[in-house]
């Protein structure tokens, strides 16, 4: 909720209209917080809210129960206005155990709703969370927040008392109790969850019944219990009409590839080695063999990228995906695709680093690696999606460009986009631009490094084509003939040609959309997953009447042709990134503008409040 309401003492249950709310479910890894959050997301979407989500879970598979590092959480913001981010500070926190309270309380706004499961606040758990005594007994807590102590476990157990289930199984349903209660508080429809419970537990009707009852019990508890004095209603957001679905970034990348495979009508080979947070792309693709997607779980990332290159050599679309450490290993292989001039798509789902770093946390610090993480002059195209749903279009676009220009295309997503979801307007597949693959079969005048005058692409030849037998490789080649050449001028020419080919991809970039005035005080330039945080911050500043605009780059190499011009129309340029300042250096070097970075590397999305502050500061500093 953007305006926080003062705590209200008992009375009639009222329903207040609010514009937006930020809710976080937090509990033990075993408490089902991810599924609770996902269901709440669907309910909110069906209610017509715009929304954005932020799942956050530990690197451990099943951390010991009750520990601080075992806390798992799911946050979402939903509202009747455009929602760009999962929100900075919480309107409501659901804490299923003391550890969750300890880890997350500081993010709750003063006066925010705090719902705790009292049953879990027993000595063992308190100790694991490092509480010397029960924090729920501290009067300060109820003073600072609207504290609701509910024995969710007990209420759930009682609601399920007569069901033929073990106590443990019953206790497990408590997250649905919490969901029911929160759904009541925010007037979310239960139907989507009821349906999905039926689907999910189709194999065990008793479990389905138990969860259904728990959900309803939670809802009824809100309705009847004396302690909740009001609930909140949120008008449906004004969203483009059409059919929607919730979409996560990794699924969208996978589906973008499926669309590309179908439209291009050749097999697509995805070579990957599991790594967080990229693994789910491999897993998603493996389920769609009907699209002639062939997945190879390779022995390592080097094999993954080179298998993809082998596939491209064979006339299929070669794609590989990983996260930072795996991308580092692929550098040499990518260089081979650069010089062999074969299409290749590389997904980098960035995570916290360096080295193994923070595997389940998000970051944007692989931009330089994408540009330069290989020996010698080895240019590739670099593009980045702005939202989870945008991943679909970016993946599709990556295949299109790779095949058209015979060039590797690196896609920079990240952990936040990968797992985050948004309500996504389902596109009409027929409106996707065509992917035109030209496999040369004409013998006359053939040379392996002949070039298309518009794109500088060399011909793609499927082995099996009679008369076009040829050999390529990683040594420098004479232009046109493709024969090995160590000749100095040819090398210089080829270095320039490979660079020019990538530069020509600029002709694919549409004019940059400026969010705000076309000239003014401050321009905020972003890329990748910070889109939401930046847009929210900029729109807030604009609402305050500030002369601020933003642009968001989906193309990072080459940069949009109109960018230099745009940058010069503002007094200051601010570049917020979840890294130590990478795009900002590219812009400074390229355009000699005194752009400044706003950089926080916390494993989390940037807070739009912080960006807003940075904008204000720049505006102030005349």
């Amino acid at each position: 909720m953007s305006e926080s309401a003062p705590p209200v003492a008992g009375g009639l249950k009222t329903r207040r209209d609010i514009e937006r709310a930020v809710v976080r479910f937090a509990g033990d890894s075993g408490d089902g917080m991810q599924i609770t959050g996902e269901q709440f997301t669907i309910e909110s979407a069906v209610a017509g809210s715009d929304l954005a989500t932020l799942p956050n879970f530990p690197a451990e598979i099943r951390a010991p129960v009750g520990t601080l590092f075992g806390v798992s959480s799911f946050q979402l913001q939903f509202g009747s206005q455009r929602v760009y981010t999962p929100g900075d500070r919480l309107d409501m926190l659901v804490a299923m155990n003391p550890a969750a309270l300890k880890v997350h309380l500081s993010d709750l706004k003063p006066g925010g709703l705090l719902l705790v499961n009292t049953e879990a606040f027993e000595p063992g758990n308190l100790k694991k969370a490092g509480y010397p005594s029960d924090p729920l007994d501290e009067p300060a807590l109820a003073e600072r927040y609207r504290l609701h102590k509910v024995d969710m476990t007990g209420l759930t157990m009682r609601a399920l008392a007569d069901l033929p289930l073990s106590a443990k199984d019953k206790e497990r349903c408590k997250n649905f109790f919490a969901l029911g209660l929160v759904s009541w508080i925010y007037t979310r429809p239960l139907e989507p969850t009821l349906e999905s419970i039926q689907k999910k537990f189709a194999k065990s009707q008793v479990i389905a019944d138990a969860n259904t009852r728990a959900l309803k019990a939670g809802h009824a508890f809100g309705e009847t219990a004396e302690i909740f004095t009001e609930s909140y209603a949120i008008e449906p957001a004004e969203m483009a009409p059409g059919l929607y679905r919730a979409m996560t970034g990794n699924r969208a990348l996978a589906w973008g590839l499926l669309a590309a495979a179908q439209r291009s009508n050749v097999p697509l080979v995805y070579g990957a080695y599991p790594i967080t947070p990229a693994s789910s792309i491999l897993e998603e693709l493996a389920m769609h063999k009907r699209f002639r997607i062939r997945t190879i779980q390779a022995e390592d990332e080097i094999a993954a990228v080179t298998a993809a290159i082998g596939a491209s050599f064979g006339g299929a679309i070669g794609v590989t995906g990983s996260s930072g450490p795996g991308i580092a290993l692929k550098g040499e292989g990518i260089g081979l695709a650069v010089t062999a001039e074969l299409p290749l798509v590389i997904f980098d789902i960035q995570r916290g680093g360096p080295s193994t770093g923070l595997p389940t946390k998000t970051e944007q610090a692989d931009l330089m690696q994408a540009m330069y993480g290989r020996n010698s002059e080895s240019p590739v195209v670099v593009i980045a999606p702005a939202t989870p749903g945008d991943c679909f279009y970016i993946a599709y676009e990556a295949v299109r460009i790779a095949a058209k220009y015979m060039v590797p295309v690196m896609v920079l997503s990240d952990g936040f986009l990968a797992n985050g979801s948004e309500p996504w307007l389902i596109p009409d597949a027929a409106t996707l631009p065509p992917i035109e693959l030209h496999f040369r079969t004409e013998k006359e005048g053939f040379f392996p490094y002949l070039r298309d005058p518009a794109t500088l692409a060399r011909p793609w030849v499927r082995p099996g084509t009679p008369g076009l037998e040829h050999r390529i490789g990683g040594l420098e080649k004479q232009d046109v003939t493709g024969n090995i050449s160590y000749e100095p001028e040819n090398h210089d020419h080829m270095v320039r040609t490979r660079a020019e080919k990538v530069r020509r991809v600029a002709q694919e970039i549409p004019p940059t959309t400026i969010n705000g005035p076309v000239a003014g005080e401050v321009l905020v330039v972003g890329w990748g997953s910070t889109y939401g945080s930046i847009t929210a911050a900029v729109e807030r500043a604009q609402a305050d009447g500030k002369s601020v605009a933003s642009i968001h780059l989906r193309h990072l190499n080459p940069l949009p042709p109109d960018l230099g011009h745009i940058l010069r129309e503002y007094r200051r340029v601010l570049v917020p990134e979840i890294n130590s300042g990478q795009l900002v250096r590219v812009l400074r070097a390229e355009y000699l503008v005194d752009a400044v970075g706003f950089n926080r590397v916390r494993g989390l999305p940037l807070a739009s409040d912080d960006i807003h502050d940075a904008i204000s500061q720049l505006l102030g500093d005349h």
Partner: protein
Amino acid sequence: MSATEAGAAAAPTPKYTKKDFESDQDVRWCPGCGDYAILSAIQKSMPDLGIPKEDIVFVSGIGCSSRFPYYMNTYGFHTIHGRAPAIATGLKVARPDLKVFVVTGDGDGLSIGGNHMLHVLRRNVNVTILLFNNRIYGLTKGQYSPTSELGKVTKSTPLGSADRPVNPLAFALGCGATFVGRTVDRDVKHMEEMIKRASAHHGTAFLEILQNCNIYNHLTWNVVYDKESKAAHELRLEHGKPLLFGPVDDRHALVMEGAQPKVVRAKDVPESALWVHDETKVNAAKLLADLWTPDYPIPTGVLTAIEAPVYEDIVLEQEQRAISERGPGDIAKLLTSGDTWKID
């Protein structure tokens, strides 16, 4: 399958000669290098494979040996150091219809590329791997390789190498190889026979070719070059034939004594006690792979050739089953499947 995939299989194969497989590129090995003989043997074997030359691909890594594809008038890809098996795997998954050869060296295939070698072998991808073993790094000018003898003095080991060599055949078998063979660059006829055998195998065929690097490791395989020594030590494996070796007038036999192979005078054992070579027995192949002079003979030929599931066959089967059961993928349908909601 696309039209082209189906079409390729249908076309009648032309009659070729060795010449058809010679490319227009200058061959750039040192004069006297064993690679020349291998190249010639492979070019000579090609017509007998009965495969249209446009359907043949040679993939290699980096090394003197890995220059190989340039000299074959087929499709070819000279890739990066050690990765040829992985590239070939991707190629075969994309294009199971192609005949793919991997040419590699003892450094390329067993040093930097050892892991891909392991995995292509256990996956049993349908490729033919030719490992030119000269027990040295040729292209980088003479450092010791993983097959160099312990104590080998080279540029990088002036006091002798400190690592025990890997035996390529034993390694391949340890990785679950389904075809393992050995031949020698100076034995042209046997080479051709082995190349054809390896190429005909369904699954990964691993063929070690003992090769002479006359610049950095001359005559490292002299024990099988020198006529007398070859006659004394080479054990030519032939399926269904007993394991006999040595000159006609001093024939020796290999027999099992418990779990240990043992060399005896041929005339001292009854025919029934002889060890008859059976290519389908991987167990036996493992025992054979470890043999070497002076205590044992040196086996050449096919150590084992077994049938086993082939990686890309299964991948394709799954795809075809999925398509035939539920129809080809349709992105429009997928996009609207599952939980959706309408906003007007």
